[in-house]
């Protein structure tokens, strides 16, 4: 790279430490392990404190809505006695239009308490809007760094909208073409401004989502007299799932299944200039979900507090066309215009409800706002007219991401596909060895214990999977 970027990259650890003020080294343990719960405990906020911090900026206590028509449609397709009640947590009603406000609230509160003059977030999505919104409520300056354009200066419509909303909240928006060097520009800005890094992956950002899990437990108990049987969570970087699962755990939902759902965009490279605009989803997809599940510590913090495999009971994928179909279904039979990216979990839930009993409850854990650029019509028009992607009704199984988008011919074709969790756990193990530059023979019992906890497994299972 060039001299400015090289010097910034060399000082990465120093810059990040100053910009977050957390010394992660105290949580490191011998071998590959670190003290995850110790790190989460050290954030110093109880669930009640998080609630009161979030209440200061009008976050949380979002409505839990029963989707009666979608439940009826799922039951019409399911076998006798099957078809769980489908509920959705309407997170779009948070101030900036998504659950990300819960995360941003904690980052901005932290920055304010520590006396930083501003915050910087690298986000092309709802988190940028959330940080911009929360920062102005706390009188902090905000810079949002976006990856937005391809080399022909064509912007992804959804990210153009995110840029607009960040500016509407008074933030400075720095917009870049495709490339992972965005991270170096982010570091350079932290270095120039001495602002706080509003990382998505700090312990307090993740703790901010625990209230969402806790509210789900409370609301389902009071509306249905039972715990939720399954909670379906759109999975990208893993924070949404981690925080929600921790909140459910804190509410005592020991039998609730935590199900991850991602949009399948297999084959589209994340850092490719040509592939960039061929994705019709900017988040909630496998391009984030898979790498982050199998190697969480790839972020802007030394140890990522978002560790989805630690909490995942099941992982499913759905196609772009299926999510667009269900987004339209949500609008046309439930009267709720949301998403589409946030409706990944809705799409999976519609399919999974058909496997469950009628008296069971499945919760779609979020919605997000919609608007120009984000909307289904905006995304499909862009794909069809600008990129020549073939949009048609048919069988979603025939999808080739980046080549076509197949809207299911009927609701019976909306089918969540299982991801083999053991495959992900094997990848996780391989990555741990690679990142620590060691062979599997060098793993100690304590290392294997950590890997087991970090992948919701037993030591025996890890040994079997990894032939130890």
């Amino acid at each position: 790279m060039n001299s400015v970027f090289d010097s910034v990259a060399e000082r990465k650890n120093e810059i990040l430490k100053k910009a977050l003020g957390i010394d992660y080294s105290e949580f490191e343990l011998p071998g590959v392990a670190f003290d995850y719960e110790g790190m989460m405990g050290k954030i110093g906020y109880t669930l009640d404190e998080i609630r009161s911090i979030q209440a200061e900026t009008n976050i949380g206590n979002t409505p839990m809505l029963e989707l009666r028509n979608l439940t009826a449609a799922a039951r019409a397709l399911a076998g006798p006695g099957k078809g769980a009640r489908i509920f959705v947590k309407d997170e779009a009603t948070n101030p900036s239009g998504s659950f990300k406000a819960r995360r941003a609230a904690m980052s901005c509160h932290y920055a304010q308490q520590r006396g930083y003059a501003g915050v910087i977030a690298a986000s092309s999505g709802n988190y940028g809007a959330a940080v911009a919104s929360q920062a102005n409520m706390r009188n902090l300056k905000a810079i949002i760094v976006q990856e937005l354009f391809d080399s022909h200066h064509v912007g992804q419509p959804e990210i153009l909208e995110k840029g607009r909303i960040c500016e509407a909240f008074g933030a400075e928006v720095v917009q870049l073409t495709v490339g992972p060097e965005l991270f170096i520009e982010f570091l350079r800005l932290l270095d120039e401004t001495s602002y706080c890094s509003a990382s998505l992956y700090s312990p307090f950002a993740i703790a901010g989502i625990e209230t969402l899990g806790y509210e789900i437990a409370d609301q389902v108990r009071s509306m249905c007299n039972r715990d939720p049987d399954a909670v379906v969570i759109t999975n990208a970087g893993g924070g949404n799932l981690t925080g929600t699962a921790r909140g459910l755990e804190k509410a005592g939902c020991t039998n609730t299944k935590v199900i991850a759902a991602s949009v399948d965009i297999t084959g589209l490279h994340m850092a490719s200039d040509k592939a960039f605009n061929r994705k019709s989803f900017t988040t909630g997809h496998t391009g984030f979900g898979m790498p982050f599940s199998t190697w969480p510590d790839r972020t802007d913090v030394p140890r990522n507090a978002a560790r989805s495999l630690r909490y995942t009971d099941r992982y499913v994928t759905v196609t772009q066309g299926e999510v667009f179909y269900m987004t339209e279904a949500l609008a046309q039979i439930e009267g709720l215009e949301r998403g589409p990216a946030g409706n990944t979990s809705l799409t999976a839930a519609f399919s999974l409800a058909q496997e469950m009993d009628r008296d069971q409850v499945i919760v779609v854990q979020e919605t997000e706002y919609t608007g120009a650029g984000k909307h289904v019509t905006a995304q499909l028009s862009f794909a069809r007219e600008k990129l020549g992607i073939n949009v048609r009704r048919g069988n979603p199984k025939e999808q080739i991401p980046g080549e076509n988008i197949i809207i299911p011919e009927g609701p019976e074709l909306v089918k969540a596909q299982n991801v083999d969790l053991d495959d992900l756990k094997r990848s996780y193990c391989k990555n741990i060895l690679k990142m620590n530059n060691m062979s599997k023979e060098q793993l100690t019992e304590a290392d294997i214990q950590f890997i087991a906890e970090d992948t919701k497994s037993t030591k025996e299972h890890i040994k079997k999977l990894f032939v130890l």
Partner: protein
Amino acid sequence: MDEKIIKKGSWVQIHYIVLQPSERADNVPQDTKQVPLELWVKGYLDNDAPIGSNVTITTMTDRKVQGTLVSQNPPYTHTFGRQIPELLSVGKELHALISKAGEKA
């Protein structure tokens, strides 16, 4: 170069190249490596200048940034797009399914 002079204090957008293709990171795909990393940012223009000239702006966070002046009061161009005929009938199809099965919402 556009002859129109943009007045000092106007709200403008600037552009500059952050990394030339030869300076791109080792780990980027080939197609990305062939193009520069470019940046756009908005702010208040520090001095009168025509479009296309090298200028300094003061951003919303009071940073001073230099680059090529590209536009004044840049418009938001994203829209809701066209209607998508493939999606228009989704609600009707689902309502029909529900009544045929005799399910009560």
